[in-house]
């Protein structure tokens, strides 16, 4: 097997790490939570970082009329299927395809990941803006519009008395490495092709 194909093989397998490790984490810091509240987002699940974190996030968020974080979302079925399919395609490419296919797989993965991120953003936006009209507390922005409580897509942001952090976790690293390696496999394969 060619060196580039071996790299592509690893690249195709790496995203499976999403089934072992969380993809993303949202953390909420405030003085009254010396241990911050945090939730992990997995490919197929939300989970507490410390016991009962999600329950406590829900309890706190209900003051401003935010919905409870659902037990499950449709994405929890779509994303795992997507990853299994793309891994399968990646494996076929690694065994059968030439280096050009590595690049196609790379593009496919970048597109799918971007779509995933966009979907995540939509979800976050809805969660942070679609508030109960009977909310106990209502806040407006300086310009008079209703304040939203959307956590950042990536990075840190102040929301009322909380500082919210949103960062990728190990699962995302596996996905990112897999994508990057497919590009690397493409260049290795291209170089090999030109030399031979």
């Amino acid at each position, binding site marked *: 097997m060619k060196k580039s194909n071996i790299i592509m093989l690893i690249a195709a397998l790496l995203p499976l790490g999403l089934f072992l490790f969380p993809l993303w984490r949202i953390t909420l810091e405030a003085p009254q939570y010396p241990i911050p509240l945090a939730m992990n987002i997995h490919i197929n699940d939300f989970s507490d970082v410390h016991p009962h974190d999600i329950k406590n996030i829900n*309890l706190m968020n209900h003051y401003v009329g935010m919905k409870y974080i659902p037990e499950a979302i449709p994405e929890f079925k779509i994303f795992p299927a997507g990853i299994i399919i793309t891994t399968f395609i990646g494996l076929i490419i690694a065994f059968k395809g030439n280096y050009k296919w590595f690049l196609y797989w790379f593009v496919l993965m970048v597109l799918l990941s971007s779509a995933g991120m966009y979907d995540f953003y939509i979800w976050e936006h809805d969660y942070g803006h679609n508030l109960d009209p009977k909310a106990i507390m209502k806040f407006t922005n300086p310009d008079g519009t209703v304040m939203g409580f959307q956590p950042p897509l990536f990075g840190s942001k102040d929301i009322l008395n909380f500082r919210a952090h949103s960062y990728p976790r190990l699962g995302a690293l596996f996905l990112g490495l897999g994508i990057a390696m497919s590009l690397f496999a493409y260049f290795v394969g291209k170089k090999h092709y030109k030399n031979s």
Partner: protein
Amino acid sequence: MKNILKLTLTILSALVALTSCNNSGKSDSRSGALAGNVAEKVYVAPGEHDEFYAFISGGFSGQLSVYGLPSGRLFKVIPVFSQDAEKAYGYNEETKPMLNTSHGFVPWDDSHHPDISQTGGEIDGRWIFINGNNTPRIAKIDLSTFETTEIIEVPNSAGNHSSSFVTENTEYVVAGTRFSVPVPQKDMPISEYKGNFKGALSFISVDPEHGHMDIKFQLIMPGFDYDLSHPGRGKSHGWFFFTTYNSEEASTLLEVNASQNDKDFIAAVNWKKIEEYVNNGGGTMVPANYAHNIYDEDTHTATSTMKKEVLTVNPLDVPGAVYFLPTPKSPHGCDVDPTGEYIVGNGKLSANLTVHSFTKMLDAIENKKFAGDAYGIPILNFEDVLAGSVEQPGLGPLHTEFDGKGNAYTTFFISSEVVKWKLGTWEVVDRQPCYYSVGHLMIPGGNSQKPWGKYVVAMNKITKDRYLPTGPEVTQSAQLYDISGDKMELLLDFPTIGEPHYAAGCPADLIKPRSKKIFKLEDNKHPFAAKSEADTKVVRDGKTVHIYMTMIRSHFSPDNIEGIKVGDKVYFHVTNLEQDYDVPHGVSMIGANTSELLIMPGQTETFLWEPKQEGVWPFYCTDFCSALHQEMQGYVRVSPTNANTPLKWSLGEDIE
């Protein structure tokens, strides 16, 4: 003779008072320039934690208080033997059984000597035990929740003072009677005390897994007063030592009549020998009546069981198990050093401190060097067991603790000071005044083979000018000394709850990581728990009504209840649905003859309300829990006894 003694004591106290004035003068001048330095030594910056936990008995408050060292900050008062409206202990239906005794519901006691459980002679931080002195009881407090989880009453006992000290693997907690009484109790002339009254020394076994207590045996001793006790440790593990006074067996005017003998005794009890005797079927089971109360953390509920018999042992039936060591004069404290070799008997009326040697004691027993016997129990010769004495260290020695570095620290009540002396050479090394009239003192781990000899806490009976006046009664207090150097240094005064008798301490790291933050809702096995709002309901059973209620930020469910009638017995079973650290909610009902309930996350508690007037009556959350705490409230409609208002309950909708 007595008058001369009194006179001498008075003169001596006056002299000592003068010298202590000098001492305090000196320490004042020292602290003037270095005051900042001293303050730094007790300063625990905001957000930082103390190095040690100190558990200081609450004396006549019946409770146990938790302080941090070196800051002296009060963290909690743990209710043990007394009802506590703040925590509903002894008021709610779940903890009422904890205060049940053979005398009925006794919601008060006099708590004296806390002692932390040990493993291999070292403090393990699992449980702390404390005695109820007045209605003899021993309580166990679980240090993961800081809640009293078990109380056992001690029959045939009165004035449960020489307790609750634990052996080095927590095999036993001991409960020795201060007052001898007829055993079993009966109607008889008090003047026939001598020879007829008995002193029970109870050995209470502790289950190594759950800590459950059980009276393994009671040693029925001659009718002296058994004052304090300490387990042997290291080489003397397997023995227990009890100081006695009133070996005269007087029953009236004891201040005179019990101070006649030049020497009283330390009773040395080989409990391993008696345990073996008992395990082989020895001892006599006798009728008794005593309560054993256990709090179950899963059901959040205590149960009280009356026990009907107890195993007694006559010391004469186990030869070689009990000896008397003559000790001058009315010894109070009985303290064993970390090596287990030295047994210090602090004779309250003695000018010197008497220290016995365990090795010499064994040797004297081996060679049968007896000076006689008391009711058949061999008395050893004073000289044969004496390791040495500290000559004229102060006035009125009470208690001794050890720093694990070969030094002992003894409190002197009359001369009001802590005196540091060396084991083996018996020389006084240092002394520091107390403010005032010090009783016990405590070094963290002091009652173990591994003391943390960094601080000593002295517990004072009187404070007079030390604090802002608050009427005729001034707080009792503790004083913290740094003992890490050659000289002791007074760092801090801090007030205490009730009269502090004794204390136990240990490094915070032994307890802090195991501290429970919430009760898991899924583990709640309370028979009346409602684990979600869907489970809430109101059930009538004749004139009894059970309300299965929940609480969460910031509402009760249900919050509107109708169909309650005058004369009903209404039980509010309230479950806190929160699962977040330090988010309890409270609840109270107008006219309820009980305290509010303060319910921890995941816990269920119950209070009884017997409405006596018709109307619509509010209940509300008593603990400021959230931004909408003031809105956390509800109503109960009470109809006349003969009304037929249907039973209804709701949340978030109008009932009608």
